[in-house]
Each structure stands twice: as structure tokens, then as C-alpha cells.
């Protein structure tokens, strides 16, 4: 597959409600910055989890920068754990309490909840899909997105995120904070030639150093997406590793017109 152009980026993390805040490295008090989910209609926003709203915020930022059609853009959502804390809450209800489940919470517990809520909440009739691949989630989401760009010749929004790891769900000291990132990918032939381009993910050796991240972000399975956003915004060319050494070694090349 040939490269695609990156027309927009977005992110949400505690203290950093958007990419500008992150690049300035000026965190707001985390308690003051809850994800807003402003992309979503009122009904969807009400039923969305904090993770879904955080994904929606990153998605919206990338969408606006790329000036894509919110009602038709295809999307790929990558989550390593999915809505794990909602799912564990439901299991507690089923197995240890009265067993009566809330249909709304059930709908919000599935791995593709964010894909569904963002799609419905933004009245988007475009293709959407959701996947998880542990620490290779960013690489696999980008792989899927590039395949869709090339198959349909249309832009694709990639949004990757994971909530703060629920207690005891991850082993050892692997816990992490919430982090969501998004990229708007467009076919090269439809893009401004000045935009950076991204190769298909492949296993290789990085040439660019990872960003300096707080430990809670660096541990998140999506940290490689933040490394990629950092490199894109710095104007770097080179190879970024997407798994921070904990997956199978997938990287992407950032290319720029000379």
C-alpha cells in the first residue's frame, strides 16, 4: 500500500484537552478537564462513557482540522481494552448482585461502543469499524485505515484510546492513565502536497526517539499514537515505533515532500 496524507490530528488526555495544550506541555488541573463529547448529540452524549467522549473529542479535533464531512467520513476505532470498567461493573451486577442489568450500560460495555455512539451521535452514515490488538492497537488501526483509504479512495478518521486501566485488570505495574488520539488520513491525490504522509505500518527499527511522556501516558497502549502526533507536529521525517517496545515492533514512516 502506498502512503496516505495526514490532514488533521486530535487528542484528549487528563490535563490536555487538545493537541495545542499537549504541545505546549501546559497541563490544566486534570479534575477541571473532563471530556466533553461535543461532537455528539445530546442523547448520545448522555449515554456515552468518559472514554467514548474522550475519543469523540480527539476525533472532532482531527475532523475539524482536516475539514472532513462529519456525516460521511469513514472511521476506525482502536481500543486495547475497550470499555473495560463498564464491563466489569456489569459482571459484578450479574454475578455478585441482583443480576438485573441496565440495557444502556450493556450497550456501553461492548468493545465497539465508541464506534457506535460516535457514528450515531454525529449522524454519520459512513463506514465504521472497531478493533483491538493489545499494544499493537495503534499499528493495526492505522493498517485498517490505510486499507480503507486505498479501497474506497476516501478519507478515514482513526481514533485510538484507552481509559485509565481498571484496578487489577492489568498485570504488575502496567497501569496507565486515559489517553485518546486521532488522525485524519486522506488519499494523497486529494491532499495538499505540503501535508506529511504516512506509510503503512511495518515491523522495523525506529529512527525517531519517542516523545517525553508522563509515565501514565507512556504506559497506555496508545502512547505510540501520541509519539506519532508529536513527530508530525514537530515537522519530523523518519520512522516512529507505535508500541513503545511492548508489542511486535510495528513502525510507520513519516514522509514529507522535499
Amino acid at each position, binding site marked *: 500500500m502506498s502512503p496516505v496524507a495526514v490532514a488533521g490530528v486530535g487528542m484528549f488526555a487528563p490535563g490536555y484537552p487538545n493537541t495545542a495544550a499537549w504541545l505546549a506541555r501546559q497541563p490544566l488541573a486534570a479534575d477541571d478537564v473532563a471530556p466533553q463529547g461535543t461532537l455528539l448529540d445530546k442523547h448520545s452524549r448522555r449515554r456515552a462513557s468518559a472514554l467514548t467522549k474522550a475519543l469523540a473529542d480527539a476525533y472532532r479535533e482531527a475532523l475539524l482540522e482536516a475539514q472532513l464531512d462529519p456525516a460521511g467520513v469513514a472511521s476506525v476505532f482502536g481500543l486495547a*481494552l475497550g470499555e473495560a470498567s463498564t*464491563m*466489569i461493573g456489569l*459482571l459484578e451486577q*450479574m*454475578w*455478585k448482585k*441482583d*443480576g*438485573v442489568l441496565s440495557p444502556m450500560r450493556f450497550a456501553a460495555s461492548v468493545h465497539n461502543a465508541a464506534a457506535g455512539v460516535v457514528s450515531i451521535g454525529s449522524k454519520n452514515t459512513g463506514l465504521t469499524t472497531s478493533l483491538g490488538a*493489545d499494544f499493537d492497537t495503534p499499528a493495526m488501526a492505522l493498517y485498517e485505515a490505510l486499507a480503507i483509504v486505498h479501497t474506497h479512495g476516501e478519507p478515514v478518521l482513526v481514533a485510538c484510546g484507552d481509559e485509565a486501566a481498571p484496578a*487489577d*485488570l492489568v*498485570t*504488575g505495574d502496567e497501569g496507565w492513565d486515559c489517553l485518546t488520539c486521532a488522525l485524519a488520513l486522506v488519499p494523497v491525490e486529494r491532499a495538499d502536497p505540503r501535508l506529511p504522509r504516512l506509510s503503512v505500518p511495518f515491523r522495523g527499527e525506529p529512527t525517531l526517539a519517542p516523545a517525553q511522556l508522563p509515565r501514565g501516558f507512556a504506559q497506555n497502549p496508545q502512547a505510540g499514537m501520541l509519539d506519532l502526533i508529536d513527530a508530525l507536529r514537530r515537522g519530523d521525517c523518519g520512522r516512529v515505533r507505535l508500541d513503545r517496545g511492548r508489542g511486535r515492533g510495528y513502525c510507520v514512516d513519516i514522509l514529507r515532500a522535499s
Partner: protein
Amino acid sequence: MSAYPPIEELLPHSGAMVLLDELTRWQRGEAECALRVRERGPFVKAGRVSSVVALEYMAQAVAACLGYEALLGGGAVRVGMVIACKRFDAQVDHLRSGDLLRVEVRCIQGNDTLSHFDCQVLRGAEPMASAVLTLYHAPNLPAAS
């Protein structure tokens, strides 16, 4: 004769879904089970079973590990649910009926509600599949609605 109770007494499964043959080694947090892939067993087609089914062998070995622990403690076999599978690696596409397999499981972290087990399926000394399973535990099956 095995030093351990029949496998059916250690698992919450029954009938044909008991895929393991016996518990062969146990210590708290670790177990080894054995099975021979049955020609007429569930998931076996034309003498072959997909290596993905190794996940079920692993899950049942974890259940046997915890089931025996529960029996030793005077309790009943507990039920559990696999809620995550990480780092699944299969060295083969399929296993064959008649294969004699060993399933090794080891708890790497856990409490009464959630636990993580490092699991491996071997044919002789040859690794066939490995994964880390995360399980949710409960004393009973959920009440039928």
C-alpha cells in the same frame, strides 16, 4: 492412578465440553493438565482442531487449578469467565486428533475477583500455543432471569 480427583469434579463444565482428561500436577497458583484430542470431540473437523481452541484448553486448565484449590479449602468449584486474552501465539494452525497435549498454567497476579494466568499448550516438549488469560471469578453462576 492420578493423585488428583477426576477432572469432571474440578471443572464447572459437563459432558462433551470437558475437554481435559486429567489434572497431572498442582501447586497453589499453578497446574498442569493433560488431554488427548478426541476424534469425535467438539471443534474437531476432519481430524483437525483449530489452534484457537487451545484457548479453551487453557481456560479449562485454569478452572481445574482453581477448582482443586477450592476443593482443598473445603469449598465448591467456582465459575469464571475469560474476559481478556493477551499475547496469544499459536505455533501451528491446527492440532490433530490423537495429539497428546500438556496444558500448563501459572497465576501471575490475582485476587478473588480478577486473575491473570500465563498459559502454554505443549505437544511433548514442543510449544503449540501460549497466551495470558484474564479471568473474572464468582462463587456462582449468574441467576437465570
